């Protein structure tokens, strides 16, 4: 027994010192190898008298377990140490730049169109489109603007032929005509798109964007028009309250017609929408003129409703603080990067319009 204790103490002591894997394996062999001290002790079991054998076996087993545990933990310890030192050598400067990634951008006009579509989707509108090239009939005549009407002068039209039959649409209103001619009431649509007028300065661009709205049903009146636009403007500018003013105006294709102003003020050089004592005109609207309904084969005695037209670029300028309209179309990489939106930033009514 005293031999066993001696072996135990000796090796436990050895294993406590600073060892590498090879020395631990050496110890392992010395103890548990073919001629190892513990192995030999087990071999000697048979030669012991029966009464001593039991006690000796029990002692031997416990010493064996103790030494084995010690060896395993020692091996573990060394392994961990080695891995740690290896990892230490592999250390890199993580402040170096990451691998290159590129980030694209969505143009503000597209973003605003998606915002608008999302808002109107919520109140039951669907999106329609029409061609950029229109004929004179759809752009003007069907919209109650005959050739001899001075209102035509309000639109500086780009023509594609000398007879002035073909033109670039001056507004999105011809989509109203196309939609109504191709379907049956009720109609509840918006139509965003490109529009063109031969006009160019700080606030006018020969191409710009409008969104047309049209809601025709049996009993749609000016109250619905007011409600719809009030809802839209509040949602678009993401405010709870908006100061809005409807005032009479004139468009050949609506009657009564209105222009809508929203209140604003300038705070710290920035425009704040919704409050203030200044008015900003943002859209034109009205009840669709009975002549227009007749022109598209809708009976004005049975159906009525409203239409509106909003300048998309201008809405974007107001919401996102963009000063120059022409910059929208000049493809300055810096501008696109600054005012553009992340492609994953899709406006929707459940996650909100803008971040």
């Amino acid at each position, binding site marked *: 027994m005293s031999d066993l204790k001696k072996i135990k103490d000796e090796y436990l002591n050895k294993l406590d010192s600073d060892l590498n894997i090879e020395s631990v394996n050496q110890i392992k062999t010395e103890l548990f190898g073919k001629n190892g001290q513990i192995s030999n002790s087990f071999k000697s079991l048979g030669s012991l008298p029966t009464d001593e054998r039991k006690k000796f076996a029990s002692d031997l087993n416990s010493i064996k377990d103790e030494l084995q545990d010690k060896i395993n933990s020692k091996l573990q310890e060394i392994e961990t140490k080695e891995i740690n030192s290896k990892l230490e050598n592999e250390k890199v400067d993580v402040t170096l730049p990451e691998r290159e990634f*590129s980030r*694209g951008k969505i143009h503000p006009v597209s973003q605003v169109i998606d915002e608008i579509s999302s808002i109107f989707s919520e109140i039951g509108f669907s999106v329609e489109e029409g061609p950029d090239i229109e004929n004179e009939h759809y752009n003007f005549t069907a919209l109650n603007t005959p050739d001899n009407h*001075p209102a035509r002068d309000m639109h500086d039209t780009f023509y*594609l032929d000398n007879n002035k039959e*073909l033109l670039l649409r001056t507004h999105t209103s011809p989509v109203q005509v196309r939609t109504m001619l191709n379907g049956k009431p009720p109609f509840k649509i918006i139509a965003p798109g490109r529009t063109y007028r031969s006009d160019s300065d700080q606030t006018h661009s020969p191409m710009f964007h409008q969104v047309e709205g049209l809601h025709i049903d049996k009993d749609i009146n000016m109250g619905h028009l007011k409600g719809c636009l*009030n809802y839209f403007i509040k949602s678009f500018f993401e405010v709870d309250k908006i100061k809005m003013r409807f*005032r009479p105006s*004139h468009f050949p294709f609506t009657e009564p017609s209105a222009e809508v102003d929203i209140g604003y003020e300038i705070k710290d050089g920035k425009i704040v929408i919704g409050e203030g004592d200044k008015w900003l005109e943002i859209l034109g609207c009205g009840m669709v003129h009975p002549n227009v309904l007749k022109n598209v084969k809708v009976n004005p005695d049975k159906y009525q409703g409203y239409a509106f037209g909003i300048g998309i670029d201008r809405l974007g300028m107001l919401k996102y603080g963009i000063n120059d309209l022409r910059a929208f179309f000049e*493809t300055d990489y810096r501008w696109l990067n600054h005012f553009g939106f992340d492609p994953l930033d899709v406006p929707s009514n459940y996650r909100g319009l803008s971040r």
Partner: protein
Amino acid sequence: MKFTIGWLKEHLDTQKKDNELIEKLTNIGLEVESFENLSSSLDSFKVAKIINAEQHPNADRLRICDVDIGLDNTVKVVCGAPNAKKDLLTIYAGPGSIIPKNNMKLSVSKIRGVTSYGMLCSESELNLSNESEGIIELPTGKYSGKIGRNFFNSNTEKVVDLSITPNRPDCLGVRGIARDLAAAGVGKLKKISLKNIKNNGSQKIKVSITKDKNQGCTVFGSCLIEGVTNKESPKWLKEKIISLGQKPISAIVDITNYVMLDLNRPLHAYDADKIDNEIIVRNSKNGETFEALDNKEYKLGDDMCVISDKSGVLGLGGIIGGIRSGTEINTKNILLESAYFIPRSIRKTSKLLNIDTDAKFRFERGIDTQSIELGLSKAAELISEICGGKISNFDIQKTDKHEKNKIKFNVSLFEKITGFKVNDNEIIKILTDLGFEVSKDKFELDLKIPTWRPDITQSIDIVEEIVRIKGYENIETLQPEKTKIKDTLNAQQKLFHFLQRSVASKGYFETVTWSFTDSKINKLFKENLKEIKIVNPISSDLDVLRNSIFTNLTFYLKKNLDRGFKDISLFEIGPIFKDSKPGEQLTVIGAIKSGKISRLNWNEKDRVVDVFDAKKDVIQTLVEAGYDRQNFFVKDESPSYYHPGKSGSIYLDKDEIEPVAFFGEIHPNILKKLDIKTEGLVGFEIHMDYLKENKIKLKDLKTNFEYSDYQKSERDFAFVVDKNFKAQDLIEIISSIDKNLIRSIKIFDIYEGENIPQDKKSIALNVTIQSSEKTLEESDLEKINKLIISTVETKSGAKIRS
């Protein structure tokens, strides 16, 4: 339309403050553009007295004047006028004043060494007359007590500028505006006071309106005023004209202008002595010419409404008068015209001749047919008052009675359209105040429409009149209903939005450019599409509709390269045009990428963008949009603006006729022609119109999830094929050997060179084989291996590389 509040009050009896009137104007549809103190610029002109005037030491023609401008101290003004002398009452303009004649702003300045604080003014400098000899001499009696006061005292009034919509010609006259305001309850419309003028004798010049087809004149009223002395207008009239930013000319001209602005009643004054015998209102004949008051000679076509005499055309009725019969300062006898011209005729003629005048603007919108005599009376009264003369009887020639139009108005329509109710009595009052003659007939109102409202023809017009006068603020705001009739977006629109964001997510900046472009650039990209010219382009370098998105993208790419950017990725989604009829357009995505990948990168080697960058972006986009890569078929054909050897087209399926996309490097010639300097330029285009709607919806695609857990095996092959042999074909051959076992094929090396014949190349590929039924044994694998080799060798003429 400009006017002053004072002028308005000549027609409107009101106690309201200016700002209340202004707000009301906007609220009833007469939009106030501005309400400004135009006179602020005229306030700086003061009545002044020269206290002392002495010779300038350095200039013979100049004098140094001490001027009393009503302040404690006099000011020194250097003046060149010969009449600048002691005790003269004149007009002084201080530093900062703007001289109306030339819009010059005065400042304190040294004139030949002597400092001058302001200036003394001549009549011409103040636009009061053409008199430029010397400074104004004000009469002592009237002005000696007014030194220091504003000379233009009536102009302390602000000027209102209204934006009048084309349907409201009546509001192109101050009286019409006053009538609307009165109806809206802010005052009472005054009666027009006409002094009893004496009409002596008949109008001696014969007037006739011919019965030509499409005769543009239906009423021609005239009167002769003999023995007038034309002169400068009196101050009140000049000031009225000036306050609206116009220039006084002579009393007769100013009076006709005044009546026009006051009543929207255009008039024309002829020098009666220059009229050859008689006035004939007729249609022009092609080739006739006349010299108009704008000093231009116009060549007329057929059937334009002209006022003529025996010698020829005097003027274009309702548009512009002629020089031959124009009044001058020494005109003795005048013929005054007050006529009605049909808007359509006016518009047609003025468009053809490209003339825009105040009269044309008004007649085109429709003048009150019943204002002929009122206009003559008002003008004749003023002319005789200011210029003297004998007024003849009025001669009115008419081919149309112009009776008042009638409408039956069902009052219930008002609530149906506006959503709120106004009681019948109030409706009747509003309409009556607006000049309607109203009689009630059960549920309907019988209305006679005032002749100054040509815009009102049907019931909806009446609704508008009532609601605008009543006020739009009375319309209730109804909560929008959320019921949907249709899905918000159709399949094509969803695809549009998806592709747009898909391309952007690959690092491209979306841009929006004009739908038109420079024909010179367009030619490089138009292929066999038709060039579509704009008849009236905004500038000569934006003269055609674009046949390709690349026209503008390359143009702006160059601009950004010139700004110093190198690695640029741009795209646009929008229309290109095939032809000039509605609908002959396609929706296309165009994207370009320039420069290098990983430029100046510490851990990756940079490389120039190449065709496979473009191919990756376009294929990934299509795959993300839901199209099956397995079915794509790539051809090495592409439009001529791509590099012929490094570009291709993509078909959704082998059998499709139209490619949905092109990709490749841009042809070096294009870069050269556009002077684009970059290491590399690639691009792709996706034609949305050829993208078929995915028949299998995502929800259907996802019903069965099948997978195999049996062991996968991979085998590598290298085949030596002809150099022109397409990798796509090799993959097609292998994958069709056994679709159940061959799960994927990856090309991992292309080799040409040593050990390979010159006209050959080696394609190395890795094939993954897996069964969904069992673990494949070595013998199965060996079988498929052999099959792959033998099939490829037979079908492609390839040789396995050993």
